[in-house]
Each structure stands twice: as structure tokens, then as C-alpha cells.
């Protein structure tokens, strides 16, 4: 799927994650130097990612303090995330990398950013390769299962169930 100025939207996320292959990364970097529009988009995506992380952190804190109120809190959090998403991204559905990012954000405060990132990378590799870009919506359930198994092996069944639950929430929108 073409996103912005010929770059697939997943490339933007991979660029920020640092997982984009060196050649594509250099190509995108060169483009960013000469295109203020894309530089602005990148800035917006980065800010949005930080927003997602902040929301996930506050959600976990909220669970500890007021577990009964989580329903409302989660709903509001999701609405804020959607409202704050960059205009260039808001007009279409969620790309694979975005869904991964959301899942990772839920895991970050519980497992630690390093563990969450590492688990996502390994699950993506097991699912079909992160770098060769073969991941698609059809592979989402497999990815979620692999991620759940990987994280569950270290963090236990509750963590695995959480991934499966959030993964299913996102996957329910896949056509």
C-alpha cells in the first residue's frame, strides 16, 4: 500500500523503530532532507507514538489504583489515540506496524520496553520476517500467537492472555 510520496506507511514506522533495511533507510533519510512535508509527517508520527506510550503507561497505573474504572479509562484512551493520530494516517485503517505498536505499548509498562521490543521482533521473525516485509493482516493472528508464546514463556500465562486479548480486539476489525 502506498502511503506518502511513494513510501509505504509501514516504512515510516520501521524507520522510527530502526528496523528498516539500511538501503531503504538511506533512501528515506535523503528524501526527508529535501521534503518538508514528509519531515513534518515523521515528526507527527513520532509525537503520536509518544502519546500512545504515555496513554499505555497511565492505563497500567490506573489499573493498580482503580481497577473497577478501567473500562471507561480504556475507552477514553483509545479515543484520544485516534483523535491525536496524524492526519495523513487518520484517513485510513491501521497498518500492521501500527497495530504492533499498540500491542507493544500495552506491554511496555509491564514487561519493560527492551523486553517488549525484543519479543515483538522475535515474534515477527517467527511469523514470516520483519525485514522482508511479508507481514500482512492475514498473518496477524499468527503474529499474536507467536508473541503471546514468546512473552508467556518468560512472563507467564497472564501476560500471554493479555496479548491474546488485546490482539483479538485489534484483529476483530480485520476484514
Amino acid at each position: 500500500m502506498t502511503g506518502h510520496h511513494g513510501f509505504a506507511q509501514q516504512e515510516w514506522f520501521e524507520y522510527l523503530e530502526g528496523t528498516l533495511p539500511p538501503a531503504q533507510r538511506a533512501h528515506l533519510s535523503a528524501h526527508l532532507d529535501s521534503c518538508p512535508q514528509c519531515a513534518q509527517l515523521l515528526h507527527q508520527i513520532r509525537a503520536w507514538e509518544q502519546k500512545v506510550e504515555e496513554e499505555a503507561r497511565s492505563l497500567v497505573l490506573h489499573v493498580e489504583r482503580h481497577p473497577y474504572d478501567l473500562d471507561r479509562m480504556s475507552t477514553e484512551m483509545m479515543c484520544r489515540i485516534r483523535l491525536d493520530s496524524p492526519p495523513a494516517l487518520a484517513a485510513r485503517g491501521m497498518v500492521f506496524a501500527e497495530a504492533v505498536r499498540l500491542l507493544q505499548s500495552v506491554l511496555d509498562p509491564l514487561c519493560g520496553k527492551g523486553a517488549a521490543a525484543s519479543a515483538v521482533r522475535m515474534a515477527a521473525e517467527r511469523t514470516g520476517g520483519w525485514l522482508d516485509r511479508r507481514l500482512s493482516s492475514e498473518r496477524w493472528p499468527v503474529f499474536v500467537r507467536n508473541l503471546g508464546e514468546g512473552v508467556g514463556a518468560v512472563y507467564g500465562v497472564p501476560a500471554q492472555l493479555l496479548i491474546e486479548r488485546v490482539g483479538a480486539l485489534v484483529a476483530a476489525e480485520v476484514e
Partner: protein
Amino acid sequence: MTPLSKVRAQWPGFTPWWIAIGSAAGLLNSAGFLASVFFANIWSAWLAADIAREHGRGQAMRRAWMLIALGMLTNAVRITYEFGFLLAGHIDSSLSPMLGLRQIPIVASLVAMGLGLHAMWSSFRSLGLGVKLRKLDWALMAAIILLIPPVVWSRRGLNDARSPFEIVRYLQFASPVLLAIPASMAVVLYRISRELGEGFMALALRWMAAALGIRLVALVLATAITESSTAGNPLVIFAHWAFLAALLCRRHLSHVTSCLVEQYSISGPALLATLGWKKIQH
């Protein structure tokens, strides 16, 4: 959420208090010391076994927590054994050689702990964590190993080293070496905790690393200050309670995660209606 789980949710918040109370109780006298360490070990064993049950059969992490639980339980058995001698007025093994047999559970506990921590490391390696150690880590591990020969040499004057039981004499020299293994693993656990970044697991690993490191320091201190056999006691108590703190943090991670799962299960459809996500595209 039941009232019990509400209390459980607060455990990590009370951790410094638990450590302070446990340490204070342990410093009263020999009985207080044994009681404090016994309580910390029993609680730790129960928590570790509880955490182990969260992992599937055959998983390295399940094996790790079960071995840690076994190590803690064996240590509690050793303390009970020592307590019996304390009640009889035999506080050192020169008065009762049978007390020297405590070396068997001490060594068994250290072996279980070492194997458990190794299994834990293997599990983290499956996530790509703790794979590469830094030069500083290797230097610290080398320093720990270098500490051991003088400690072993100094222990030849201790009562257990002159035990009439041959096995006690051997095991007595083996314990510093076996304690060095978990202490070295503490360096690895600390490195993994840095790689994790933040979260309850990272916190648990840091407490664990502190506990294992302090236990070694206590051993070195107790060996160096031969005039007082209780010189390392405050550190020993702190180490056992710090290990308990690690397990409380890890248990809290499960509690929060379970809470999240429950809430997502209840409110899934409502969440979907408001998410506004259309689909995942490539």
C-alpha cells in the same frame, strides 16, 4: 477483585517496610535472626512456587522458579535444624558436631538456587535478552571469582572445617564456591534488568541481584571478621528480605497483568465500538 487480591496488589508498596521490620526483628538476638530469615525464606518459597505455576510444563522459567522455591525451602529446613540446636543451647558446632550437618541443606540450597538462576537466564535468552555481556560484567564476575580462594582459605579455621564428619568438611569449603555462582548470576540478572528498561520484572531482577550480591559480601565480611560470628548478620537478613522483595515485585506483575486481562475480557465489545479502527492493512 477480592479483598485479598487488593492486599496483594499493595505488596510491593510495602516492601521497604517489610524489609525494615524483618531486619529489625532479626537483629534482636540469635533466635530473632533465625526467625526473620526463616520467615523470609518460607514466604519466598511460597511465592516462587506460585509464580512457577503461571508457566507451562517444560518451560525454562517454570523450572527456574521451582528450583528457586526448592532452594528457599531447603534453606528454611536448614534454619529449622539450627533453631533446634539453639533451643538446646548449642549455638556452634564445636559443642555439637551434629550441627555441622547443616552444610548439607546449605549446599543443596545453593545448588538449587544456582541452577534456578541459570534456567532463568536461559529463558531470558529466548527473548534475546542477556545474550551479550559487557566488559564491566565480565570484570565483576572475575572479581567475584577472585574473592573466593581467600574466603575458602580462611574458612579452614571454622568449626565445620574441623567436623568429625568428612562430608561436612568438604561441603563447608564448597559453600563459598557455590555462593559465588549465584553472585555471578546477579551480574547477569542486573544486565538483563537494564536491557528490560523498566517494569516490575526489571525491578524484581534488580532486587534479586542486590540480594545475591549482598549475600556474598556478608560471607566475605563474616570470614574477614573472625572475632564476631554475627558480623554479617544484618547483611544476611537484608539479603533474604531483598530476595523476598524481588518475588513480591514479580508477583505484582502477574497481579496487574491478570487485572488487565479481566478488564479487557469484560469490556472488549464496548472498546471495539469506540476504537474507530477500520482494519489492519499492509
